[in-house]
């Protein structure tokens, strides 16, 4: 075995007093070799990002600091470096890319200047010519035009390419990638992963790749380290960890990843139709001015779909495809411009204001962000009971029902007197589900209900939704960008692309025999798509 590039031994990182545990990272060991991608995988709070920050010397000191261990890189212990010595390493020997391409670039500086800055800071020659070469190397279209571009002119994927160009400008021996594709659409993610893979093997770099997504691990890793509560619980080759996990936690995490094989479902052809949407259209216009042209965006074009009693229809697509617009038009949070929304045969678009009220309680929504969608100043009981009280239920009865609902979503009924901030993300989403169920709706619109949750919590919330749906015989419009989730949850799936539904059909049929090129592209881009389909089905 060759000498490792980076050797981590007994690394312990302290958290400030009063945190939920004393150490963010506790006594971890791993080696990173040249020409190797090591994935650090774990759920939020497992300490993986702080481990990466420690390797870059970017811990938020003094509140969080390494207290023991050694990080050996090129014969030196990184933990004993002065700030000046760190600056020599960062950018030159150690490159890093971050999760959020939207915020990781300086918004008021040209991207070309931000790359140039790295060369200048380390006294590297080449200037703008070298910057153009780098932009070429990360396959950005039209580098000449990019010379004058600011970050807001670029898409998320393009920004992440700029970040990569910047991190690799000085040919570092180690690249640290902290969730570099988490904020990207699935097709963009596939391209960025391929680019990292390609550059890594061209340059024989060692890559420390932080992720929470086992699909991404399956796609890119050579070696995998699984982290839980600040410890590495399992370390091995990709094959070994993914196919024959030994640690209980690894097994649990892997089992929680939805497979891409849709289960066979009985068709619901005979159930009555609950919702039927025909030719729905929604156009966003920004008003023009005296000298200003109007801007028109078709968020939904001629959308036609229907949902039967007890059926879950998945609405899948990438960001900006119009999924959420369709959901909000159906629940009448926004008004559509065209088309019919028939709910039990009555066109909801014919009603306005208070005339809609009787229908409001029959269609309810579950929102994506469990942190932002619950009023932080209201108690959980009040949040759940507010709907029924608005519809005339006596407050005492509504509160009793709120307690029953909390029990239904596996929370202790005594929590009615607590505030949302006292709960974890998964618990909050359960509260959000209880709130939606409080009015005994017939149709639920779930807008990315699990995409903000860790994979094990996601599995629990999905199980809960499936259980409730079956018990109450609910219909559901399930909006998601995650095709793995869609495969497991939905009876039928509709694929949206640029405001239009390009293909819809039974989940099994659509996943096995996609007909539209965009559907094929989406399915193709799923990270680790060959993992856990044939072998584990």
């Amino acid at each position: 075995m060759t000498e490792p590039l980076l050797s981590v031994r007994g690394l312990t990182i302290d958290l400030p007093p009063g945190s939920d545990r004393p150490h963010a990272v506790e006594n971890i060991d791993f080696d990173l070799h040249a020409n190797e991608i090591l994935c650090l995988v774990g759920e939020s709070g497992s300490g993986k990002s702080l481990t990466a920050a420690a390797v870059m010397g970017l811990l938020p000191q003094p509140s969080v600091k390494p207290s023991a261990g050694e990080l050996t890189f090129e014969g030196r212990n990184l933990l004993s470096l002065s700030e000046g010595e760190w600056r020599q390493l960062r950018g030159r020997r150690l490159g890093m890319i971050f999760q959020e391409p939207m915020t990781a670039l300086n918004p008021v500086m040209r991207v070309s200047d931000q790359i140039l800055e790295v060369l200048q800071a380390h006294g590297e020659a080449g200037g703008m010519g070298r910057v153009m070469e780098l932009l070429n190397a990360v396959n950005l279209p039209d580098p000449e035009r990019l010379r004058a571009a600011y970050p807001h002119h670029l898409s998320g994927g393009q920004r992440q390419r700029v970040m990569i160009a910047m991190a690799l400008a000085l040919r570092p021996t180690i690249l640290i990638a902290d969730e570099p594709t988490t904020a990207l659409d699935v097709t963009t993610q596939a391209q960025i992963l391929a680019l990292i893979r390609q550059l890594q093997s061209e340059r024989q770099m060692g890559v420390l790749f932080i992720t929470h997504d086992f699909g991404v691990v399956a796609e890119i890793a050579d070696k995998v380290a699984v982290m839980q509560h600040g410890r590495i619980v399992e370390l091995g080759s990709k094959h070994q960890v993914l196919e024959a996990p030994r640690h209980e936690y690894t097994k649990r995490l892997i089992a929680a990843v939805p497979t891409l094989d849709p289960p066979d479902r009985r068709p619901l052809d005979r159930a009555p139709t609950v919702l039927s949407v025909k030719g729905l259209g929604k156009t966003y216009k920004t008003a023009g001015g005296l000298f200003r042209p109007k801007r028109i965006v078709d968020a939904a074009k001629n959308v036609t779909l229907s949902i039967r009693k007890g059926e879950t229809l998945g609405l899948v697509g990438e960001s900006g495809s119009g999924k959420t617009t369709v959901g909000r038009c159906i629940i009448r949070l926004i008004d559509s411009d065209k088309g019919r929304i028939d709910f039990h045969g009555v066109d909801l678009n014919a009603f306005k204001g208070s005339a809609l009220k009787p229908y409001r309680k029959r269609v309810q929504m579950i929102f994506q962000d469990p942190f932002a969608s619950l009023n932080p100043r209201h108690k959980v009981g009040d949040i759940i009971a507010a709907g029924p009280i608005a519809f005339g239920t006596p407050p005492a009865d509504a509160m009793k029902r709120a307690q029953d609902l909390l029990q239904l979503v596996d929370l202790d009924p005594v929590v009615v007197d607590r505030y949302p901030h006292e709960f974890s993300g998964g618990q909050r989403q359960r509260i959000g589900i209880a709130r939606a169920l409080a009015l005994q709706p017939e149709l639920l619109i779930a807008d990315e209900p699990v995409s903000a949750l860790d994979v094990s919590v996601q599995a629990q919330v999905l199980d809960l939704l499936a259980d409730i749906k079956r018990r109450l015989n609910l219909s559901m419009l399930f909006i998601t960008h995650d095709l793995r989730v869609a495969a497991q949850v939905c009876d039928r799936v509709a694929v949206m692309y640029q405001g239009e539904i390009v293909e819809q059909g039974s989940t099994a049929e659509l996943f096995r025999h996609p007909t539209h090129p965009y559907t094929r592209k989406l399915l193709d881009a799923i990270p680790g798509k060959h993992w856990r389909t044939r072998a584990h089905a």
Partner: protein
Amino acid sequence: MGRFDYVARRLLKSVAILLAIVVMNFLLIRMAPGDPASVIAGEAGAADAKYIAQLREQFGLDQPLTTQLALYVGGVVQFDLGFSYRNQRTVASMVGERLPATLLLTVTAFVLAIGIGVGLGVLAATRVGTWADSLVTVAALGFYATPLFWVGLMAILLFSVNLGWLPAFGMQTLGSQMTAGERAVDVARHLVLPATTLAVFFVAIYARLTRASMLEVQDMDFVRTARAKGLAPARILRAHTLRNAILPVITFAGIQAGQLVGGSIVVETVFAWPGIGRLAFEALLQRDYNLLLGVFFLTSVMVIAFNLITDLVYSMVDPRIEVGA
């Protein structure tokens, strides 16, 4: 959509706003009791009804209000701000004479306020939690809470009366033979106290704003990116933190420019600075309608111009603001 179109559109809007201001000022002044005829007649000791009616006819005050308004607006459109009967001069010549002094005072105060305020804010933010930070924060709070006229009076007491370092009032030493260079130094010495007094309040605001904004930007992802690139701390501070932290300060400065013009009335009065602020004060006491309206018109033009300049500067400093988009 270019910058030129944007400026053209903003100028058109500004003209409409100015006209509305002119009309409103005209009507508001007419609502106040007393008019120039009664003040002049009273001072002449001949306040009988006949004389006042004669003066009113002479000044055109006997016409219906709408006619007077139409005449006045018609004049303003042609840059004719009317005639001050009290001073027997055109209003344009009077305000034109005073404008340079006010511009000198407000622009100097503005530059001082931004320069010192941002400087102190950066100092405090980069040394957060130290005595320097506490000193800046407490001093800023003190200046913020102190009335302008009191600061002015105390400054005169300390620097002119007790220490004798700087002149206490006026814009220049009267009746002395001076070369152009000597005159410039003389005006600068006269400018120090009033400009600093006017700036102090705004220094406090900008220091606090800059400090808060810097602390917020310091924790942003792109600052971490800059560190990951191995940049030197000074470079990170200048090109990344301050460059972004300055944006809210610029927005605020645009809004504050109007208050600066307002504050100059107090400061000009305290320091006997021969600007339009003092002219306004005198015109008010004399019920000199046309002169007062002329001063109001000019200050509105200044406020609108300050705002337009700020917006343009902002669009240059922040590329995300695409003018006209």
